[in-house]
């Protein structure tokens, strides 16, 4: 048994370097119905396995950027190059969006295609539920869970297919402060464990500096600021270096308004 465990750990560590997708955007533009462009001539390189946070004011185009990267929208101009398996991209929405008529384990199994055999779908769903600490809720209806638990089920659904890119569209915005910090730590831990590329769109600059390797400030459809967060992990909340960085980014976001 220990040999099998060792083998699996080794297997994971060898697969880690290429576990994520590398993203390259060149001159990307997007406008809707001939209106003013939401994204204008944006260039970006994200190396595989990086945790990128995208912050910006409402309507700056950050969610559109995420949808373009995921292929949910087609660009009006420019090119998106994604190295790796295109199908292994997953998104976590602001709302849990669980199917109310499917039990928790079945909701998680939605993340796996129908081509996966039923027994394997179930086993993998239970495995990832265990990872988010909800193994005992597998047979529950979503209506019986708390808001934080539902969002953890949504996280499990996003992770069950072992995606190479996880897009997070303000997934913690509706949670209370403590649950939010727990979720941040959980996402960070799983990201470190699995090595996927993560793109987090958020309003919360504090969340961005706590979780990300790199922060992009998007203003009027272009990248206004691109900073690396080189504070080592695990990061302590209230770390002065993080607070200083948060202050700088907030100043940039607020200063632009004046």
């Amino acid at each position, binding site marked *: 048994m220990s040999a099998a465990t060792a083998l699996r750990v080794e297997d994971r560590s060898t697969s880690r370097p290429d576990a994520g997708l590398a993203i390259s955007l060149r001159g990307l533009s997007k406008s809707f119905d001939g209106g003013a462009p939401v994204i204008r001539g944006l260039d970006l390189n994200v190396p595989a396995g990086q945790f990128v946070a995208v912050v910006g004011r409402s309507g700056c185009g950050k969610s559109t950027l995420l949808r373009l990267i995921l292929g*949910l929208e087609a660009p009006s101009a420019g090119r998106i190059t994604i190295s790796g398996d295109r199908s292994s991209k997953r998104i976590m929405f602001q*709302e849990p*969006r669980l199917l*109310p008529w499917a039990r928790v384990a079945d909701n998680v199994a*939605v*993340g796996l295609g129908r081509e996966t055999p039923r027994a394997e779908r179930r086993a993998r769903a239970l495995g990832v539920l265990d990872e988010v600490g909800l193994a005992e809720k597998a047979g529950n*209806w*979503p*209506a019986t869970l708390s808001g934080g638990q539902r969002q953890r089920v949504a996280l499990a659904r996003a992770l069950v297919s072992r995606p190479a890119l996880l897009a997070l569209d303000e997934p913690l915005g509706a949670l209370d402060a403590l649950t939010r910090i727990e979720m941040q730590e959980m996402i960070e831990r799983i990201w470190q464990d699995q090595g996927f590329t993560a793109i987090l769109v958020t309003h919360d600059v504090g969340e961005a500096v706590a979780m990300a390797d790199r922060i992009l400030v998007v203003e009027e459809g272009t990248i206004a600021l691109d900073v690396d967060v080189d504070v080592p992990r695990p990061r302590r909340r209230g770390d002065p270096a993080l607070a200083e960085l948060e202050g700088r980014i907030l100043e940039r976001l607020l200063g632009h308004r004046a």
Partner: protein
Amino acid sequence: MADSAAIRSLPGRTHRAEAAAPLQPNPLRLPTAKLLPWLLPTLVIVGWQAAASLGLVSTRFMPAPLDVAAAGWRLAQTGELWENLWVSFARAACGFLIGGGIGLSFGLANGLSNLSEKLTDTTLQMVRNVPHLSLIPLVILWFGIDEGAKLFLVALGVFFPIYANTLHGIRSVDPQLIEMGRVYGMNRRELFWRVVLPGALPSIFVGIRYALGIMWLTLIVAETISANSGLGYMAMQAREFMLVDVVVLAILIYAALGKLADSLTRALERTCLAWNPAYRNA
């Protein structure tokens, strides 16, 4: 018509849940709670029997409950009751399946396809505004007093509530869930079976319950006006011979059948909609 049913019937459910909630899980109170709904009907029957026995009401126009029961026994013995009951039930079921099936199909088609809705919805809404019972003279001309007439009227009556509620149910499925399904790689077929249909089901059930009411109503009227068998026919025959007890018996059987159909639908709802807190067994 059916839309107002959708609005009326949902708050009713939540009231029930609220009313049941404060009851303590006291084992002594449990049988009382179950019997309580039957208290009023029992009192009415007892009072009615007393009034008839004491001669307060004329049994010529309002027979005593025991007389009604005796009439039921008599007709059950001769087999007349079972035959008429079966004929009425078969008509109701066939008409319901035909009309409900067509209503469900149009509801699904128009909910899923804009083209289909553009083609048929306006026409259906116009036909819906014709009271279907007003067609009885025409239907008698077309079908005579054969089975066809009754089936046609019942099917027409149950069509609209099921159509309107199915359409409404599909239209009100959370678009965020549909987007989630697409993003998570569901094809159209999977999207329908896993997201759209389960989401529309509560509304479809509202349509079914409303349609069941219309089904009995239509059948009674149709059988009373033109038939040579069935419960309505039995009641009309009895009126001609002044057998008031049989008339009342027929009315009570209709009430019991309506209640039975409603209970069956509720049981079905509780199984199919167990995920929905509003339908969970309180």
